[in-house]
């Protein structure tokens, strides 16, 4: 019988925390996708050796405190305004790497205009879009991406389109715009998915070097606290319900 302490040995370690991921205890709930995506971004910045050239733009939402976790310069934005803040940064610092990190309420509701127009101008930035179909930080309200029938605190009987409208596939929408060069939908619920998501984030950053336009990586994510499920059940629920509506894969790669 092998004990856990026999397994956790330096020679058995396959994955490690990025050097750029700070030791600040994370405020995210256990099971939340944010921590994994944060680590992937930190790894990509570390591997590309662009720590001193990267500026992150943090949103309003659960990841408002993203700047506490990754060791780079950060700029906090107002709710939904991250693409405009990133535009100001990138236009004045065209050789730096600028990325936004935004949730679904931030990117696809209150910030829709800023999102669409940053995409349409082809701002040479990277957008990381966490889509968990709910407002996590404010306590589980309906998001623009909440699925029909999905329960949230402001649609307690489930989202009903005649009252609440339809879930919006914002990535499909911006993939239509000539200013975007790379739009992809990923997840981080399995080791395989994490590896794919990392490749996508890396490509989205590399595209800035090539000055190709805006790259958007949507990560279909869980919010087990908001969904009121265990982390494992949330992963299963996401695969069964979110993926059919938000299918994983590249929407555009030019």
């Amino acid at each position, binding site marked *: 019988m092998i004990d856990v302490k026999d397994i956790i040995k330096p020679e058995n370690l396959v994955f490690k925390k990025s050097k750029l991921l700070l030791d600040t205890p994370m405020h995210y709930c256990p099971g939340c996708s944010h921590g994994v995506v944060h680590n992937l971004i930190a790894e990509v910045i570390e591997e590309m050796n662009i720590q*001193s050239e990267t500026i992150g733009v943090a949103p309003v939402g659960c990841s408002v405190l993203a700047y506490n976790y990754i060791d780079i310069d950060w*700029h*906090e*934005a107002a709710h939904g305004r991250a693409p405009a803040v990133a*535009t100001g940064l990138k236009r004045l610092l065209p050789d730096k790497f600028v990325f936004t990190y935004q949730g679904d309420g931030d990117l696809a509701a209150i910030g829709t205009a800023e999102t669409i127009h940053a995409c349409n101008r082809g701002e040479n930035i990277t957008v990381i879009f966490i889509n968990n179909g709910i407002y996590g930080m404010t306590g589980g309200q309906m998001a623009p991406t909440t699925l029909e029938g999905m329960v949230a605190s402001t649609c307690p009987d489930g989202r009903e389109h005649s009252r609440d409208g339809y879930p919006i596939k914002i990535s499909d929408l911006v993939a239509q715009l000539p200013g975007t060069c790379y739009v992809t939908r990923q997840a981080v619920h399995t080791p395989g998915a994490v590896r794919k998501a990392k490749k996508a984030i890396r490509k989205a950053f590399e595209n800035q070097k090539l000055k190709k336009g805006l790259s958007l990586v949507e990560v279909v994510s869980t919010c087990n606290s908001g969904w009121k499920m265990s982390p494992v059940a949330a992963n299963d629920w996401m695969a069964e319900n979110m993926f059919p509506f938000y299918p994983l894969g590249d929407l555009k790669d030019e």
Partner: protein
Amino acid sequence: MRELKLMKGNEAIAEAAVRYGVDGYFGYPITPQSEVMETLMAMRPWETTGMVVLQAESEVASINMLYGGAGAGKRVMTSSSSPGISLMQEGISYIAGAELPCVIVNVVRGGPGLGTIQPSQSDYFQSVKGGGHGDYKLIVLAPSSVQEMADFVGLAFELAFKYRNPAMILSDGVIGQMMEKVEFDEYKPRWTDEEVVKNNPWGTMGKTPDRERNIITSLHLQAHEQEAQNIKLQAKYKEIQEKEVRYEEFMCEDAEYLMVAFGSAARIAKKSVEMARAKGIKAGLLRPITLFPFPFKEIDAFSDRVKGILVPELNAGQMVEDVKLAVNGKVKVEHYGRMGGMIFSPDEVENALEELIIGG
């Protein structure tokens, strides 16, 4: 050698911005200030000084583009008119909260609502009393000539960077649209990136190994931290109040009656003072150039010397409240105003002085 030109106030803002070495302008069209961005686009400064000029999708976006650029330590500015400035208030509050320098030009039109495109001074309260949410202040400069439109671009940037605070040039459709001769300084080069880092070590220019990461934020979730930040802001505003008051006096030495007016209203009031003097009335004019910091002490100094103060404004009576605060009941203060884009004539104001102050 200063260069002499004949141009509109709005055009002077653009010309002065390029000459001062501004890094970025972000704006959205709105009457009566669209010439600012049009002039910049026609000047093509990206080919000469390297200045970025970008038309945003809204005033909400343009102020947030400023927020990003200002966070890096760059010199950034925008211009708009009243309804557009209202849309920017969220961003202005964030910029003030995060203590970033930038310049915002408001070429005011009559309101409320969509209002009129004619000149007004009805955004005084919004400019000097907050405007957006939270306890903050803008540095507010009030030009009353095309020359001052040009000169105040540089002054606004100097004060904004000195105090890490957004500065506003509060103009109106009169000053923005009229043409006058204006002298310009020589072109100054923009800061290099090395100079930006040296001058503004707090900026998000990328975390180098020699320093901790820079974080631009207005978020302080712990109440005691937010209070500490607010105390720091208030101390800064107090220092600005003590050190940066600017004003102009006209025929005040022997004045028995004082007018206090800013911007375009001050131009008209100056003529009214001359008309009153021709009638043997000893009138004078004090023109606040900084609206925040407001010349409270300087106005109060007239409390014992004059028999009354008239405050002519192109609004329903806004700055008059600060004049009353300044003199604290020691002398009679009356407001005379026109609204909604109507502009009083010099004799209207002179009559108001006789009726409301001398005869009243």
